[in-house]
């Protein structure tokens, strides 16, 4: 049996819908990076979908109530504060990784995305069932199979989840305070809906 192996560059990412919101980010004063990795401005970055909940329609993915996990990827100041830190995210804003501290985003597995028709840049929501706080986010990172509840620092902060740096055997690690739960929903086919900063929270 012959194995034909060929490596080619086949495709790329042209333009991500998340870029639509960059002008809003500028309006909010949220530039690239913060002096303090944990100085998170809730709701900064993507804001909410123009037209609110009626524009995004019914969720095509619902995590159910699950334990919140922090994804610090894309936050340049997250290095050294999280052993899992990665400078890149699957999604990009203006050709850059999506800064966890600046943008409310959620992480989904590739299977979850395929099975629910979700693409990078689609709108999502994060709800803290303990407080009732919700925030709009976008799907901007692809994670390992079965992962649910993994959200950016900005999304966590927006729903009242505090973050703390703890010392572990592997070094400092930024984790949610307590064992907070969240519900993550995502809305297929909504990536082209532009951001509207009057729509910061899903329940506002």
């Amino acid at each position: 049996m012959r194995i034909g192996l060929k490596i080619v560059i086949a495709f790329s990412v042209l333009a991500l819908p998340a870029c639509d919101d960059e002008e809003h980010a500028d309006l909010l004063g949220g530039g690239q990076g913060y002096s303090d990795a944990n100085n998170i401005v809730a709701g900064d970055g993507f804001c909410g979908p123009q037209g609110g909940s009626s524009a995004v329609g019914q969720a095509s993915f619902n995590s159910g109530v699950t334990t919140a996990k922090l994804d610090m990827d894309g936050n340049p100041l997250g290095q050294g504060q999280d052993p899992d830190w990665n400078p890149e995210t699957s999604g990009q804003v203006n050709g850059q990784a999506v800064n966890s501290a600046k943008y409310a985003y959620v992480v989904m597995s590739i299977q979850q995305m395929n099975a629910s028709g979700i693409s990078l840049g689609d709108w999502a929501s994060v709800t803290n069932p303990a407080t009732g706080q919700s925030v709009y986010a976008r799907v901007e990172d692809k994670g390992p199979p079965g992962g649910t509840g993994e959200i950016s620092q900005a999304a966590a902060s927006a729903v009242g989840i505090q973050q703390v740096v703890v010392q572990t055997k592997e070094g400092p690690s930024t984790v949610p305070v307590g064992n907070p739960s969240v519900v993550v929903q995502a809305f297929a086919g909504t990536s082209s809906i532009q951001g509207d900063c009057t729509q910061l929270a899903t329940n506002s």
Partner: protein
Amino acid sequence: MKTQLLYAATSILLAVASQAKDVRSPDGRFAVRAEATISLVDASGTSILTLVRDTSGDAKVEVAWSPDSHHVVVVENSVRGSGIVAAWKDEAWHKTIELDQDQAGVVQAEQAQFHGRLVAEHRKLSGWISPSEVAVKGEMTFSNGGKYTYGYTLVFRPGPGRLDRGGYEEGELIGKDYRSL
């Protein structure tokens, strides 16, 4: 067996992005076409199925045709995770997907073993065992830096699958015989 790896990089030239790459079936009657989406096409290039709607963020895509050209498997790998979709043919082509739940038992066991949560996972194909069974190898990385290398067999089990929102017939692509490598 025909296996090809398609590498994608977000930094490559836009001119390259519009190029399609076909991975032809051994009998030459079909191909998997990798663009911004991954499609199954016939010999004339007409799309039969969209296997993956959006490859944004993928670092590597692997395509493997079975020797009989009746099954094809596509493995997507992003920086932190992978996913597997497939298509199979009887009178018509069907698309299916491997569910994350397949690996849930392994993930739970190894998270307990490593005292850390799963933070990254990657998979690759390692050869057809039969026309409807393909070997898979994977590596999981846990939050404490621990790594677990494993293998399993991915089996096509055509049947009355549940159609999900992505259009995949769920329950027709099953992982079995998980083992540590």
